[in-house]
């Protein structure tokens, strides 16, 4: 798999199909056995409707086992084809996708271009609540070129478009039977649903004769048990009732480590804990105030005390180690009260009083983090008043409304995806309200990079954008939080584990096996 860059892959998309069939770096491959996993993020309102998926239980069950997308982000971060065999575009605006042939849904229906068109259309419509609507909306034309060939025309060039199609909301359903497929869980994935009790349990068995072949999806059966309670999940792992759990409680991590029957998996991805400031509101509309705040945060202390070391310091950009163009050359923002004072003076102030809203709904430990920031910033003349907000309704009543608050992002696979979700001027989730006049150069680069097919130029553009964010941006990104999970030693997992999302990007049923 080495030696093929993402861009190279894009130009010669045919390679992708071959890669996904042969390139899985699995060791110790034994077919058979069962994987029982205890997963959080489950709810009684869960269903096989991918438009509503938002947490691990359904992502691992749907995209990770029962359904497929057109493209897939491999464990090493490269893009490979899943139901699409290859794709090409000369201008990043008109894309032709060649679909895999001989694929069947679990009910026997053959997969083709019509299924793609209908599955994509699910996300459109005036009333659509789909989280993937902003992605699919950019498609202005869908043309069926053949049973297994499809042309998608975008409203504007986007070199990352095939990446966007790997989103866990965009799954392929059988055309004309979508309602039935959502009710029963009929997809093209490696595993076929046997029973599904929302918020309780999902059991699926391996499909014989699957298009992905016999090198992946090695379990005969998978059982995902919904365990939202942290302690119950740890107990189930300790007593060997489940083979794997996600989201380890750091406070009791030592107990798990001491157990010789299991191992801890830890990956640093793009999951970030942030503090957005509304840059259209005083005093945050003054870039000097924002800079004073940036230098007032003791980032290492936050990583040590809030994440208990399970993370990395951030540099006020949302681009993390799981991204292709992660700028590692930038100077790290360090805790420096003198610089805080200096920038406050630049803003014409000797000290400043600020309200910081936080709740553990934003992330576990957000209130503690706010209090640590309060202590570290006071040395630089910034007096923080921590307001503890109720967890219920936090995202509706506090986030995007209070001028300085706690927030989190799970990050995105590509730079453009992240920026256009939360940093582009005018988009609804631009949580620092960074507008055109405040960030003209950034917005200009964003549009340029999106259409740029040349990797080197693109790298330069994204590096410059990260520098702008670090210096002038309205979002404090003090830390990246690791994904930490536990796996029993009777299950083997590959050397490289995906870092885009928990549990090997939710695809452990496909990538792991019985040791």
């Amino acid at each position, binding site marked *: 798999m080495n030696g093929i860059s993402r861009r190279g892959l894009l130009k010669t998309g045919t390679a992708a199909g071959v890669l996904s069939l042969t390139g899985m770096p699995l060791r110790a491959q034994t077919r058979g056995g069962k994987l029982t996993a205890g997963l959080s993020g489950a709810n009684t*309102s869960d269903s096989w409707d991918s438009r509503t998926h938002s947490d691990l239980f359904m992502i691992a069950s749907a995209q990770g086992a029962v359904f497929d997308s057109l493209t897939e982000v491999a464990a090493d971060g490269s893009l490979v084809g899943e139901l699409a065999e290859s794709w090409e575009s000369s201008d990043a605006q008109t894309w032709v996708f060649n679909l895999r042939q001989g694929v069947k849904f679990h009910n026997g229906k053959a997969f083709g271009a019509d299924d793609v068109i209908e599955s994509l259309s699910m996300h459109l419509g005036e009333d659509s*609540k789909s*989280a993937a609507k902003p992605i699919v909306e950019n498609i202005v034309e869908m043309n069926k070129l053949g049973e297994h060939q499809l042309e998608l025309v975008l409203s504007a060039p986007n070199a990352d478009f095939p990446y966007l199609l790997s989103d866990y909301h965009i799954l392929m359903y059988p055309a004309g039977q979508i*309602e039935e497929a959502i009710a029963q869980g009929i997809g093209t994935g490696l595993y076929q649903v046997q029973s599904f009790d929302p918020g*309780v*349990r999902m059991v699926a068995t391996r499909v014989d004769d699957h298009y992905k072949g016999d090198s992946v999806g090695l379990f005969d059966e998978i059982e995902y048990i919904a*365990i939202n309670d942290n302690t119950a999940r740890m107990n189930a792992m300790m007593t060997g009732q489940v083979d794997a759990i996600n989201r380890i409680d750091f406070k009791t991590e030592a107990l798990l480590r001491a157990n010789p029957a299991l191992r801890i998996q830890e990956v640093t991805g793009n999951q970030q804990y942030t503090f957005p400031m509304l840059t259209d509101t005083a005093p945050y509309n003054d870039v000097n105030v924002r800079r004073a705040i940036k230098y007032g945060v003791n980032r290492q202390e936050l990583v040590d005390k809030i994440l208990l070391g399970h993370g990395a310091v951030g540099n006020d950009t949302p681009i993390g180690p799981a991204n292709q163009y992660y700028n590692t050359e930038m100077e790290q923002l360090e805790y420096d009260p003198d610089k805080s004072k200096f920038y406050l003076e630049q803003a014409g102030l000797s000290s400043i009083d600020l309200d910081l809203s936080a709740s553990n709904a934003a992330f576990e430990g957000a209130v503690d983090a706010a209090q640590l920031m309060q202590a570290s910033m006071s040395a630089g003349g910034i007096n923080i008043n921590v307001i503890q907000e109720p967890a219920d309704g936090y995202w*509706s009543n506090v986030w995007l409304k209070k001028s300085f608050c706690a927030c989190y992002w799970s990050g995105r696979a590509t730079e453009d995806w992240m920026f256009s979700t939360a940093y582009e001027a005018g988009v609804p989730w631009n949580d620092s309200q960074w507008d055109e006049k405040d960030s003209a150069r950034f917005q200009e680069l964003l549009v340029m990079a999106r259409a740029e097919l040349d990797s080197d130029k693109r790298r330069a553009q994204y590096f410059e954008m990260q520098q702008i964010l670090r210096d002038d941006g309205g979002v404090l990104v003090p830390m990246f939080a690791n994904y930490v999970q536990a796996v029993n030693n009777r299950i083997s997992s590959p050397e490289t584990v995906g870092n885009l999302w928990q549990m090997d990007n939710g695809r452990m049923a496909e990538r792991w096996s019985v040791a």
Partner: protein
Amino acid sequence: MQNVLKIILQRLALGLLTLLVVSIVIFIAVNLLPGDFAELILGQAATPESVASIRRDLGLDQSMVTRYFSWLGGMVTGDLGTSFAQLNFQTNLGGTGGKTVAEQIAPRFANTMFLASVTAMIAVPLAVTLGILAALYRNTVFDRVANIATLSSISSPEFFMAYILILFLAVLNPIFPSLSNIYEGMTFGEKLEKTMLPALTLTLVVTAHMMRMTRAAIISLLASPYIEMARLKGISPMRVIVKHALPNALAPIINVIALNLAYLITGVVVVEVVFVYPGIGQLFVDSVKIRDIPVVQACCLIFAAAYILLNLMADILSILSNPRLRHPK
């Protein structure tokens, strides 16, 4: 007997009134919580348009009074309605069908009843036996130990007892599984094994109350002349208590047993969460979390109804067990 019938009817009427009040209180309380279904189900992904669209679909944009009465209207005709989660799912699909609240709750309720029955099977005989023995050997070391042990277990929070049991019976000595995820298709034996730890936890919580009431009720009778007489006849102390004292002490014992049985149905919320037991308590927690009012209402009504019915049953049984009440002058 007519007297009993009258009491039953009176109590049932009062019970219905209580249920009505409960439903109003719960409805207001859930609405007072910050955030509503639309905001919570969308989470960070809530845009004003999508929130408004969900509210419109579910009728959440109407006034609280209108919503309550439309729910009540359905309720009176025996329709518990459809959960918001299911309704939302249906409008996403543009279709109909899906599970009603009743269908959603039925299997969960069956699970909770199973747990309650297993617990009752263990706890009631245990508590009554311990109570009798404590009365028999009152003020001995046995009595003291039994009292201290049961009182300490009732005084500790349930989750604490649950974790203690997990530590000793699942982690250090793997006898029972700490995960009680029972599901359809399991054999009775498997279900029983998985249910053991939550059942034991609940047993520890309810035993003290029943045991102490049994002990107190029996002891209070031991000074009565007819017990004195029995003792003078030379009957063994055990026989005095079981044959002579116990039948007259039944009324208060039944009362406290019924109260504790009601607790087994309504008080399982924490225990079910700790052991991941798919009962009504966990459904209740999940539903409160997303403000799924139809499900929350239905759960609360079931809890309230369980209390009312079991209390009613306790009263009837204590009347039937007491000849003086059975044949009033």
